[in-house]
């Protein structure tokens, strides 16, 4: 029995990259419906639990002169 046959016998199938992309699109669709299209920035950094430091980009925009 080849490894491919052994894997198929117990129902293992590696996903193609296209299928993984489709899964990520599926996640995006559900997150967008619940959290809105800007879900990648959810929650606002200042509202994140345990986040006592300023957003990382804040330090780069401060005029240090």
């Amino acid at each position, binding site marked *: 029995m080849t490894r491919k046959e052994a894997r198929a016998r*117990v129902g293992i199938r590696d996903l193609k990259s296209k299928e993984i992309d489709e899964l990520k699109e599926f996640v995006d669709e559900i997150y967008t419906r619940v959290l809105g299209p800007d879900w990648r920035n959810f929650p606002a950094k200042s509202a994140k639990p345990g*986040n006592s*430091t300023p957003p990382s980009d804040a330090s780069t925009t401060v005029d240090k002169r």
Partner: protein
Amino acid sequence: MPTIYRLPWGDFPDVIVHATVSKLKAHPDYASAKAGDPSAGIRLALELVKPEKITFPIVDAIVPVVQPDAGRKNAIPIAVAAVLAQRLGLEPVGTITQSNDVAHTSANAPSRILAQPAFSGKIRPYARVLIVDDVVTFGSTIADLRGWIHQQRAVAIGCTCLAAAFGSTKLKPPESIREQLDQHHYNAHRDLAETLGFFGECWTNREARFLLQQPPETMLQLIQAAQAIYGIGYSLGRTEHSQRHSQTDLTRVQEPPKEPPAHER
């Protein structure tokens, strides 16, 4: 071939459950949500999720099990993660997905042991993660996702599922079960685990209890089947039985990442 990562359970808590399996499966949206209907998944999550049950003080991100199951996309874990993220103010992670299809929903116990889910995708280092799935049965998916999250230098703090099969909320085997497994199948259960890609200390409670009930010949069949699937060379490295009893070889098990310095958080 995808690699399976696991680590010993440490003090990983019991799975937090929101409803019973019968209540979940009786929900009018269950079948559609399981088959990939986002609207059905969201309706189901909104009705069954109880955010007040999640009481971890330091969780800041949420990772659902994103998987195809026999070719269908399961909307339930993603919808539950979205609802919990919204209610609890958690960062929703949408980058980690399963990288194989193992069709666990209708699988028997040996197939669940042999066909381990593998994951891909990155997560922010040091994220403190809550894992979300729809139903926990053997706990294999949660164990493997937890390992992948740690492999990405984040930390899985806990896990929540809409429902759990009987005896499935405790992922860590009790000490008595681990001792019995060592007494009955010391070499065999470790050979099987190492062929799958992890150490014998990483079995889930249900996996360990299933293996404990098996006669030696079944353990041998499982090892042979695992070798056919994953290859003999995939093992983490075998040691003789006498050596195994004299050493605790956990040096190559992934350690949980240490907390970063405050200025890197």
